[in-house]
């Protein structure tokens, strides 16, 4: 068994178990530490509260776009919106892999994006599908000409630029002895960068096209991604699953629903 077999066939149940334990650990603390605050809420009209809810999520984006453009472009647009989110969830290879592990995921097949700008053209004109029970062609993709932009190569490069910007920003702050920068910031970003780089290399059969190297690089890519999933509940990556959603909903509840600050 090589690294690729280990990553695809052996490790997933362990990764899921660690992830589930971490989620249970973190969520249960919120339940056990909850303290009721018997505060009389200030009544406000429901439509205003609804607008307030949308604004709670949108306001930081507007403020970031206005007052911190570099972070907005690099951190939000490149790293999150164009980078990791579509690449993780919609890249064709990922959709295929996730569908293998979790068959209902295949519902996203029509939305999957190709690995490069040219690959959908090739599959569109290709006479045959790959010989596999799981294969499908990008003819089914809904993105059409948008794949010039919506393709793994470009989005991964944008995501890498976003990660490198964040790394540079952290390094610059660490150099100026800013105390909120910690070692964990670097390990998290480096892990993300390593996943992106190995994924990019595997897609392009780099550094060489021979099968053992390809299997090693792809195996490393999947292994690193599994480390990220297992570490997710114990690291700052948790924001993606829980922190962001809980935080903004709580802020809305506290300031707008309860205090009536609209």
């Amino acid at each position, binding site marked *: 068994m090589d690294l690729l077999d280990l990553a695809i066939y052996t490790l997933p149940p362990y990764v899921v178990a660690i992830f589930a334990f971490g989620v249970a650990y973190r969520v249960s*603390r919120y339940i056990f530490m909850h303290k*009721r605050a018997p505060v009389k809420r200030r009544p406000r009209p429901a439509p205003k509260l609804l607008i307030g809810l949308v604004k*709670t999520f949108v306001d930081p984006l507007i*403020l970031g776009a206005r007052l911190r453009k570099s972070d907005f472009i690099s951190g939000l647009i490149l790293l999150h919106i164009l980078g990791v989110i579509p690449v993780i969830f919609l890249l064709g290879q990922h959709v295929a892999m996730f569908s293998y592990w979790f068959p209902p995921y295949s519902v996203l097949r029509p939305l999957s994006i190709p690995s490069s700008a040219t690959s959908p053209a090739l599959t569109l004109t290709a006479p045959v599908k790959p010989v596999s029970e799981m294969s499908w062609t990008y003819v089914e993709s809904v993105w059409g000409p948008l794949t010039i932009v919506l393709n793994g190569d470009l989005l991964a490069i944008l995501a890498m630029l976003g990660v490198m910007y964040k790394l540079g920003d952290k390094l610059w702050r660490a150099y100026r002895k800013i105390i909120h920068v910690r070692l964990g910031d670097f390990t998290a970003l480096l892990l993300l960068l390593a996943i992106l780089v190995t994924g990019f290399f595997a897609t392009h059969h780099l550094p060489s096209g021979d099968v053992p190297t390809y299997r090693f690089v792809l195996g490393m890519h999947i292994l690193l991604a599994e480390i990220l999933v297992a570490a997710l509940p114990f690291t700052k990556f948790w924001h993606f699953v829980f922190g962001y959603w809980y935080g903004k909903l709580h*802020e809305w509840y506290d*300031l707008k629903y309860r*205090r009536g600050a609209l």
Partner: protein
Amino acid sequence: MSAWEEFSIDAVKAGARDAAGRLNSVLLHFVENCVSCALCEINCPYTPAGEEYGPVEKAEPLRKILRSQVFLAAKILPLLFGARLPRSAEEINKWAELAYRCTNCGLCYTTCPFGIHSGTMIQHLRYFLAKTGRVPTLLKMMMELETSGNILSAEGFSRVWSELLEKLRGLGVTFDRKGAKYVYLPSLAEALITPGAVIGTARILNKLGLDWTMPDKPLSIRAPIASLVGDSEAALEVTKRMIDYVAGIGASAVILSDGGYPYRFLRFDAPALLAKPLGFDVVHVVELLHEALKKGALKLKGADQKVTWHSPCQLGRMGGLVEEPAEVLSAASKNFVELESHGFFSKCCGGGNGVACVVTPTVEMFEGLLGTRIPISEKEKVFMDKLYKDMLIASKAKVDEIKKSGASVVVTACVGCVHTLHLASKAYGLGVEIKTLPEFIAELLPE
């Protein structure tokens, strides 16, 4: 050696344990879900004074403490997760410098993409710092005086309060009257800094024909001073005294004219601290005015001056009264203008959360009032002087907005804001009149 210079590892450990004991689900979210994106910096009034005063940076010491106490992964890998206690007096002093550059204005809360309120964490950090001997002397003195319940034992305070009572008697105010529906609770700080707000509120309440009374002695220096240093136990003691007083009168509501942290504390924080409802409503005088104007029960003489509204953070963003004061002022003056950052994202004056209370000019003001020198160590003096310089930098954005508005009168509703704006006005030559909302409206009441 004063407490400010000392370093005791036992006190540090005890303080860390106490801070960890206060963890609840909301504080847990604030502590563990920050990804250090530092977007909060863009709206914090203290960032212009230095990048190290951004909210994410100021809250980090508390995160370090709590990670070292309660987080599993951080306990196993402290270096990776940034979990540790302070190691020297210099480090704690630096943390005190950070903690007292926060006005708890809530702008970081609404700017953070994750809804993290650094101000709350910094209050807990102040509590930890108090446990290690870092409480500004004036705050500590006031806190002890307030907790003792004998606020008027200081001759200077007693004199100011008596003068105010004389004026109130002239308006027909009755004191400690059992059975009144409303209790008006002015603080000693209002008598000292914004006496016009107390007189104005009394006139408004009389005009509205409310059945009200007030205590003949202040129940707080400024609704619990202890909450400014995060000392919930001491704050609870003062709160209970206030609750007992209102219960003794049998009132169904408390009226406040100070729209600073006393309003937020009594309206929202106190029930949470007590873990039960107060047993009466808490309203700010602007709510009564807003309602009366809306119903047509009150008509005002129109003001001619160009007037603007500085929304106190604890009344607006954190207290929920964002639009009401502006609507009252619009009804009072055709020349009402909004500041550039009005509404939910209104900028802070830079002196809230006790900051303006512990700077050198305020200490000197209190020395004059009390007729005695407040014993402050050299180290603390340096801390206070630097804080004053930074406070003026923090208030500059608000000063610029006021200048830009062209207003000749700035109306606000918070003792801290009035005091800070006076200091900033003097420093930057603002040249405007600063009034409290009750004071301004009372002048427009029909005969």
